[in-house]
């Protein structure tokens, strides 16, 4: 428990003062300082009878409603299922006296009936929307099932601690709770995914379609490697996939899209608006776009061709229609071309400004005023060099280049020989016109 709290603090960004207090209490609880605190499993209290303090049975506990605070969600009211088709009863948590695995006790209704409770958008039904739903384990890239939900009763308030995906909870749900207790240790903490990592797909938690939850915060989604995201996208169903994809930044989405298998690319693009697709495509090279286009149905690819910029579209078209293409088609126009008299330190500054918008950042090309290529610097060399020195002092003068007309097959051979990650393309007058990347030449066939 202590580990969990500190871990979530170190990972998270801003934490409100209120949830700090709550965490403190939980911390105390785990150290046994607060006697009024205990854990409750949702599965153990749900469907148990609900009685008033005088012992009159009202119905069965149907669900717990929480306010979805991403840090620690608090139960705001309970839903009681009643027999003979009477509508379910909503009772505020303030009127709940006690919750045990035997029964839930509520106060007598004030003035004969419980005050009406209005549902707001940020409320969430625990059993209906979370229990028995799937949760995608971002670390293991596997889908788990939320077998149970761990709650914590602190000074009369009930909080959601996390989603239990462990074997212990599984056995408990199958009715082998006793066996589970004797065979396994009592639910290790690794089995519980902290609530702040339980992220619903889509963002709208009350939505009916959000069958998969992610155990990661939305911020965290950005930090996942695109290849891993691609694996995750492949694991999901079509609906869920679209929701996750829509939640991604364009740049991340572009990388993830490129890395998924053709079938998934097809399905994702089929349900992406053309505006979004256009934005995503700006992060991809013509080769990558052509690669994706080649797996789309003809109608769709023609549709997407329309939204591309004209020069990109013509290249993509060329790539799709011709067996071999010249280097100019594969060229990337955005590269770092610096003057030779820049100091290393100045180069660093410019690198910081320009590299973000650029596709080729592993090499710096040294050029003169007219754009003639004079040399190349590996970013590694730049980092190791003396900050006061000039670029031309450390650059490699003997640069391997290709002509715009060099065909892809030949470019491949050059890459194989030298093992560069990118090669500049120069015209007859040695002017640099673009850069060709290794990954655009060697496509996954």
């Amino acid at each position, binding site marked *: 428990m202590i580990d969990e709290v500190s871990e979530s603090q170190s990972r998270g960004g801003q934490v409100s003062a209120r949830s700090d207090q709550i965490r403190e209490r939980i911390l105390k609880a785990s150290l046994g300082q607060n006697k009024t605190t205990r854990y409750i499993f949702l599965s153990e209290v749900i469907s148990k009878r609900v009685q008033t303090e005088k012992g009159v049975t009202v119905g069965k506990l149907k669900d717990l409603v929480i306010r979805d605070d991403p840090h620690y969600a608090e139960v705001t009211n309970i839903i009681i299922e009643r027999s*003979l*088709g009477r509508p379910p009863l909503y009772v505020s948590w303030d009127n709940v006296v006690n919750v045990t695995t035997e029964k839930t006790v509520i106060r007598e209704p004030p003035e004969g009936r419980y005050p009406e409770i209005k549902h707001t958008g940020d409320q969430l039904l625990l059993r209906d929307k979370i229990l*028995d739903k*799937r949760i995608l384990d971002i670390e293991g890239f596997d889908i788990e*099932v939320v077998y149970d939900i761990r709650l914590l009763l602190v000074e009369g308030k009930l909080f959601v601690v996390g989603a239990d995906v462990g074997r212990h909870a599984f056995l408990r749900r199958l009715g082998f709770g006793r066996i589970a207790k004797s065979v396994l240790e009592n639910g290790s903490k690794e089995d519980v995914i902290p609530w702040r990592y339980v992220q619903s797909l889509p963002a709208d938690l009350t939505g*009916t379609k959000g069958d998969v939850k992610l155990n990661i915060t939305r911020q965290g989604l950005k930090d996942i490697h695109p290849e891993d995201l691609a694996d995750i996208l492949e694991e999901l169903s079509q609906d869920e996939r679209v929701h996750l994809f829509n939640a991604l930044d364009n740049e991340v989405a572009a990388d993830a899209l490129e890395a998924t298998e053709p079938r998934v690319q097809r399905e994702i693009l089929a349900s992406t608006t053309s505006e979004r697709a256009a934005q995503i495509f700006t992060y991809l090279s013509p080769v990558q776009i052509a690669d994706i286009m080649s797996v789309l149905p003809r109608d769709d690819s023609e549709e997407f061709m329309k939204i591309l910029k004209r020069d990109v579209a013509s290249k993509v078209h060329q790539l799709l229609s011709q067996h071999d293409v010249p280097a100019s088609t594969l060229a990337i126009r955005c590269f770092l071309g610096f003057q030779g008299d820049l100091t290393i330190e100045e180069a660093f500054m410019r690198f910081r400004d320009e590299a973000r918008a650029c596709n080729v950042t592993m090499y710096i090309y040294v050029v003169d005023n007219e754009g003639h290529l004079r040399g190349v610097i590996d970013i590694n060399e730049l980092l190791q060099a003396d900050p006061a020195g000039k670029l031309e002092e450390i650059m490699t003068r003997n640069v391997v280049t290709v002509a715009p007309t060099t065909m892809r097959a030949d470019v491949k051979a050059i890459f194989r020989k030298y093992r560069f990650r990118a090669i500049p393309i120069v015209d007859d007058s040695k002017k640099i016109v673009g850069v060709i990347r290794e990954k655009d030449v060697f496509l996954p066939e």
Partner: protein
Amino acid sequence: MRLVPRLYYLYRRAWKRLAIFSAVAGPGIIVMVADNDAGGITTYAVTGSRYGFNLIWLVIVFCILAYFVQEMTVRLGAVTKRGHAEAIFDGFGPFWGWFSLIDLTLVNFLTIVTEFIGMVAAASIFGIPPLVTIVAAVIFLTVLVASGSYWTFERITLVFCLLNLVYIPAAFLANPSWSEVARSIVSPSFPAGLTTGLLTLIMANIGTTIAPWMLFFQQSAVVDKELDEKDILYSKIDTALGSILTGLGAAFIMIATGSTLHKMGISITEASEAALALVPFAGQYAGALFAIGLFDAGLLGAICISLSSSWAFGEVFGWAHTLNVKVKSSPWFYLFYFLNVALAGAIVLIPNVPFVLITLFVQVVAVTLLPAALVFLILLLNEKELMGPYVNTKLQNVIDWAIVVAVIAVSSLYGISTIFPDLLGG
């Protein structure tokens, strides 16, 4: 996803869906099974006794038609939260509104009379006198709706729907040749060509499969149950399940009578005759089951048809028209229901009432109402502003219009042929 969690997840999801379905289900099953009312049972029994298994395939076709028609009322009700009568008033003005309402009330009332006739005939097989049957039925029908809860009405009525399945054991007792049954379903055919008698029977079958009250009933029931747009899918499944049940009922009636009466060349005109005629061939239990089924059918029909009248009247007159209110809070709604049931029962007790004439009249009035109701229904379902995403799709429109045109053509022919029996004979 590993196998065990996957299985567990699928199992839980299936359970949850089943739970949601069982909560949403009701209107569809009830309306479809109640469609096999006393008149329906008679039609199927007569069809089976005359043509054996040959027309079973038609029943299957009709059930599919009924599904597509009723499915529209589900969407309309769930989206607009209004009953059919209200929808017609709002959409097509008071003339068509009153026309539909008065037509519906008349047809419904006369149909309830035929339900009572069926119940009386079925009960008399067990030696129960008509007066007892009718008084008991009226009391039961009144108490059923007076609980002040739609849920109670629905769940009890669903039990009666299950009783409709008694035709299955009845058919088994008749010991039919199943290979023959299967053959007749797989290779549809019209025996001995399209004769007038056959055509009349086919029309009668359509007439009992798609009836005006069904549209009004299911839409009002969906509204009374407070079903929502998110329930539409399950409600459609409910309707589909209902149409399968009603198809099973109809098919097994034909199997029961087809494998006995048809083989022996016994001709009948009433379902109660079928029950009696079954006894020598399939044993007294088969006959008894048949009679129970007939009584159940009459009862179900009476409940649903009188409710559809009451709901429609309540909608138009602005009475509280829901079963979820107590009798005291909505006296007119319940009184109208009670009068429908009680008066229909009373008419049956009058000696020498010309029932043949009543039946004839019902058919004719129904023929004038059904086209209007169906056309209104499709027009409403094509209103984009009203239906939103649940508006009719192209495919649905093609199917629905085809059904409507066919039903209108056939039911008009049927109506004409009942008034002028010689016309088609030529």
